[in-house]
């Protein structure tokens, strides 16, 4: 371990614990974003793509991905562990809710309780998988998580008597604890179509989901920030940069990595509970490798290590994937009714993966630190470049 690294570790240890400041900015930031988003979509060009309710529904769906990305960021971005089976914990969370609140199981535990239970069960699964395997080197760990991600859906699909097999579990109960219609006066006359003030959770009324997911994200973000700035967070980053050096500084690397794994898994479980309560079904096909991979791409595109960055990355990628490409078709269809010049009629949805692939490759080549890089990460990247430049000169000299 170099003297510089030692010094920076010492600086981290002595660093200020400014969690309260971060919590404040997260709450304010999320409140502003949550308040503004539904109104942005009333303005052109968005207003041309769908009604406000449609958009809010999409946003509350996007919240699932934001949660997943924040969770995976702890594992990949902070602790530097490559997890390719993140969807497994998502599935475990979702099925936990299905057991806790559906006619299938006969239980009806409140959604807000199940959020915690789902997170705890997923964390437990993370511990069980991580304990024996986290000693493995990075790439071996990646394949183990990938394998786990493949095993879990197979188990859910084939254990008919416990999971209702490939049909999945249906008619999960929707949240009901908070009735948002009570304390707020009915403003529907002033703000038309604002279903928030018209009732509680239900299909066709995405507002309560939207508000809840924003609240859940805020809490998770605050926790993530506090963790990042805590002793544990600094230990993660130390392991990410140099595991050997971190170990020799007295960090218990196995426990530290295990905690990252479990905390990441618990966030995924949380997202699973939320998603299944909103959709009201779970089925094993929802949790394939594409999900794990999409979340990873969101984290990378957003900027690994930067909590706000990955959240924004997740949001942007989800919106492009679910809305953007379809709208692109509409746009082109509108302005070029006879097809694009040269290309003719192009269905952009067909090219979705191609565009996605090009975006990933291009992003890595041009801006490997992501759209919204974390300051520390960027420094490291540039340090590497400088050091390598020096190396090359040496070699060539």
């Amino acid at each position, binding site marked *: 371990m170099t003297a510089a690294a030692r010094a920076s570790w010492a600086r981290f240890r002595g660093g200020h614990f400014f969690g309260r400041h971060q919590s404040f900015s997260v709450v304010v930031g999320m409140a502003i974003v949550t308040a503004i988003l539904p109104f942005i979509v009333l303005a052109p060009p968005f207003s041309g793509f769908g009604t406000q309710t449609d958009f809010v529904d999409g946003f509350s769906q996007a919240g699932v991905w934001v949660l997943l990305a924040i969770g995976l960021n702890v594992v990949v971005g902070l602790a530097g562990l490559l997890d390719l089976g993140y969807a497994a914990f998502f599935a475990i969370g979702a099925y936990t809710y299905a057991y806790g609140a559906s006619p299938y199981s006969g239980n009806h535990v409140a959604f807000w309780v199940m959020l915690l239970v789902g997170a705890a069960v997923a964390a437990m699964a993370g511990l069980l998988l991580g304990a024996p395997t986290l000693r493995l080197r990075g790439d071996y760990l990646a394949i183990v998580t990938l394998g786990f991600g493949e095993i879990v859906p197979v188990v859910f*699909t084939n254990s008919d008597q416990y999971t209702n097999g490939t049909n999945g579990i249906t008619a999960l109960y929707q949240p009901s604890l908070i009735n948002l219609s009570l304390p707020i006066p009915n403003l529907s006359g002033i703000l038309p179509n604002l279903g928030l003030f018209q009732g509680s959770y239900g299909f066709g009324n995405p507002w309560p989901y939207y508000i809840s997911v924003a609240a859940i994200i805020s809490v998770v973000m605050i926790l993530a920030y506090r963790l990042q700035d805590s002793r544990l967070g600094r230990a993660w980053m130390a392991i990410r940069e140099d595991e050997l050096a971190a170990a020799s500084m007295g960090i218990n690397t196995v426990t530290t990595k295990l905690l990252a794994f479990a905390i990441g898994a618990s966030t995924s479980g949380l997202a699973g509970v939320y998603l299944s309560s909103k959709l009201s079904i779970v089925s094993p096909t929802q949790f394939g490798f594409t999900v794990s991979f999409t979340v990873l791409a969101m984290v990378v595109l957003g900027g690994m290590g930067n909590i706000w960055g990955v959240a924004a990355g997740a949001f942007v990628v989800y919106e492009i994937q679910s809305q953007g490409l379809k709208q692109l078709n509409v746009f082109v*269809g*509108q302005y070029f009714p006879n097809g694009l010049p040269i290309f003719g009629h192009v269905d952009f949805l067909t090219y979705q993966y191609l565009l996605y692939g090009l975006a990933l490759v291009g992003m890595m080549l041009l801006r490997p630190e992501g759209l919204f890089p974390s300051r520390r990460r960027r420094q490291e990247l540039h340090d590497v470049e400088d050091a390598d430049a020096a190396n090359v000169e040496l070699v060539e000299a």
Partner: protein
Amino acid sequence: MKPRPIALLAVVAIVASACSSAASTPSPAGNTPAPGSSATPAPAGNTTVTLGVDLPLSGAETPNGQPTLNGVQLAVAENPVPGYTIKVVAKDDALNGVHDPQTGATNIGQFVNDSSVFGVVGPFNSNVAQAEIPVSNAAGLLQCSPANTNPGLTKGAAALQLRSTHPDQIAYVRVATTDDIQGQAGADIAYNVVGARTAYIVDDTETYGKGLADQFETTFKALGGTVVGHDGVGKSGQSDFTALLTAAKAKNPQFVYFGGVTATGGGLLRKQMAQLGMANIPFGGGDGISDGSAATANSFLNVAGPAGDPSTYMTVAAVSLIPDKAKFDADYKAKYGSEAGAYSASGYACTQILLQALKAVGPDRAKVRAYVTGQTPAPTFNTVLGNITFDANGDTSQHIISDYKFDPTTKDWAFFEQKDFTSGVTTTAPPAAAAPSAS
């Protein structure tokens, strides 16, 4: 009024179909009567109402969704409702090229929130329906699926859970009969037509395939047969069935039944049976392998190739001898330049039912729903599939299964009988009605 955005989606759907003519493109300009969406000139004092369509329209699923959507468009064009201009708004429930329950739920939610929508045709896939039925049930928006066959969507405890908001109000009906009937038909072929007493069953571990295979197993056993093995093939993308078939061969089955679709390996299974010397064992499957003759690229018979031996059977949960088959096929071909798809007529029928309700009670959703599923006795709808009544669960009265067999001379499915599982009447095909492709 600002342009109605969703209408634009309909444009896309048609642009994507690559066979659009100027006349069939609805204008994106909102409230003005769209000239193309209804074939007849709109009478004065028209109300524009929206017919929602939710189908998989991109990626691998386009061959399922697009011909069905064409059937809907054709029905709208050919069955004008006086006083109304029908705007067809098609939404795609595929995400990343695969049908996606989450997207389906979002789509149906958008239809619910669009007050001009009086009814919805769709969805195509059973797991999408699982996500949509609770939404349409809560909102009382009637949806008619042209293709869903999973029994759990309408019958039993699972279905009651799906419509938990209004268990007594049926907002989801379908014109295809259920897999339990189709599974029975498969077992009936194996036991009575082929005369097999032992069967080996393979399913693709998906909702449709497994449901079909399980029903086959139950019925085959009830008839007195023995199921010597029942295994599943893992995920789609698995290409090797030699090990599974070697294990099956050792058990000497007299019939092999496949619950699944061509895309999850149906053709491959039949092909590899031949390679393992099992070509002479009769093979059967459901409508998941009904996708055209050996000349149709990528169809079951095409994939199975020469191995699609005479003794390959297939059942379809649709009426083959539809009353006006020749006219329907001709109209479809005239408008879209291609052969009708497996569920085009079913999409047409669903549309007819919704339009008849509109004609009778107007565009009010609650009235439309009550008209179709809330009356005693249930009304009979005259559709392209014949007369249809819906039972208390929203299932069609037509428990008709068409049985097909591979014909090595035409290299196509040949219709040989149609069984009505309500009356037990079997109708064999008049020679002229041998369908060139499964309907």
